[in-house]
């Protein structure tokens, strides 16, 4: 795997972690919680390498 791809996976994992963290911290807004989870979907698929 080229270095650039490894970097993209690391960035993907970092963004996924940020989204999960923000989802946990969100207390009230159901809309915002849902948005964090929806944005998380493509990152999870990419990290799991589902093709």
């Amino acid at each position, binding site marked *: 795997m080229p270095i*650039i*791809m490894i970097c*993209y996976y690391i960035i993907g994992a970092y963004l996924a972690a940020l989204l999960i963290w923000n989802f946990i911290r969100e207390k009230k807004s*159901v809309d915002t*919680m*849902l948005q964090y989870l929806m944005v*998380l979907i493509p990152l*999870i*698929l990419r990290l799991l390498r*589902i093709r």
Partner: protein
Amino acid sequence: MAQEWKTKSILIVAVIILLIVSSIQFYEHRHYKMPIVAGPGVTKVMRLSEYSPGLKGTMADTDVFFLEGKEKGGTALIIANTHSNEPAALLTALVFLENAVIDQGTMIIIPQFNHSGSRNTKPGDGYPLFFEIPTDWGSKKFRMGNRNAAPLDQWPDPDVYIHYPDRQLLSYLDVRNTNRTWPGRPDGPLMERVTYGAMQIMKEEKVDVALDIHGAETMFPVTNCIVAPEKSMRIATMTSLTVKAREGFDNHVEPSPSGFRGLSHREIGDYSDTMPFLLEAPLPFLDQPTGPKTVDLLLDGKDPFLLSLSKKRKLFVPYDETGWPMSKRVGQHCSVGLEILRQFSQKFPEKAIKVRNVPRYAEVVKNGVGHYYHNPKEADPSRVFLN
């Protein structure tokens, strides 16, 4: 606290269900194998990676069908699904592949040129994943593809695509567009390796004529036409005049711009001895101001918004309540392709390419496209290729 995590749990479960359902749908689409029945003219089948080894083992590798005549003559290459969201190209290639008999010369057909592009779609634009064509024995199911290769196969995109070898700056997306990556290189990005493979076919098999089949918006001026560079212009003009006179449909000629790099009609002409022709038929599905992107719109091309625009003379093609059905588009491609080969054979009789058993415009419109496809269940299994 308890209420908060109750809500979060419900959301997580809902999103997981959504994730699983959508993943299954996309996985089925990406891995669906469409059967192609090799017709009486097919003599051998190769892989594009045999001409461009950098494709071996990748999703961009694709089948290359050879139809060789008994008598020596010229060689024609038909490229379809350069853009996999323009399916009249694939349907036309299959009409040739499943029916054509070559009396003289050779025909090479690549039905799914951007193989990776045919395995992703545009969910954000509401594209259907599949469409079906009615046939005499049931219906034939096809994947609906995308204009560009799947990012799963070629990633990451650059900020700007620097075309090889002219170094013209193109949109970042064009690095995955097999009509911007010509003439390609053996070790470039995946789509450059695809176009490089086709260039190698043209050089090694001494291809005389290359037809790259497309579809274009009715609101785009380069539609319903043959795009040709200088060296193909005479044959393109004769073809346009002949189909208009004999078969009654318009198909004007557009000159290939010399300053716009990476396109098949430009680079094939400049980097090989082959005469390229790019065939465009109207494709209302691709227009922006339409209703939902449904299978019906894809197949019959009927849309009330385009009809309204047509009355205001905003379209570049004639358009009425009958839309632009698939049979009309495929019929045009068949006739224009056959006429180009006939004109070429008249001009260069020593390199003639004589094809029979392929329907022309009126026949396809009358019988429908599916009439020309064979039932893979009844065919000899050794003649069925899953693609």
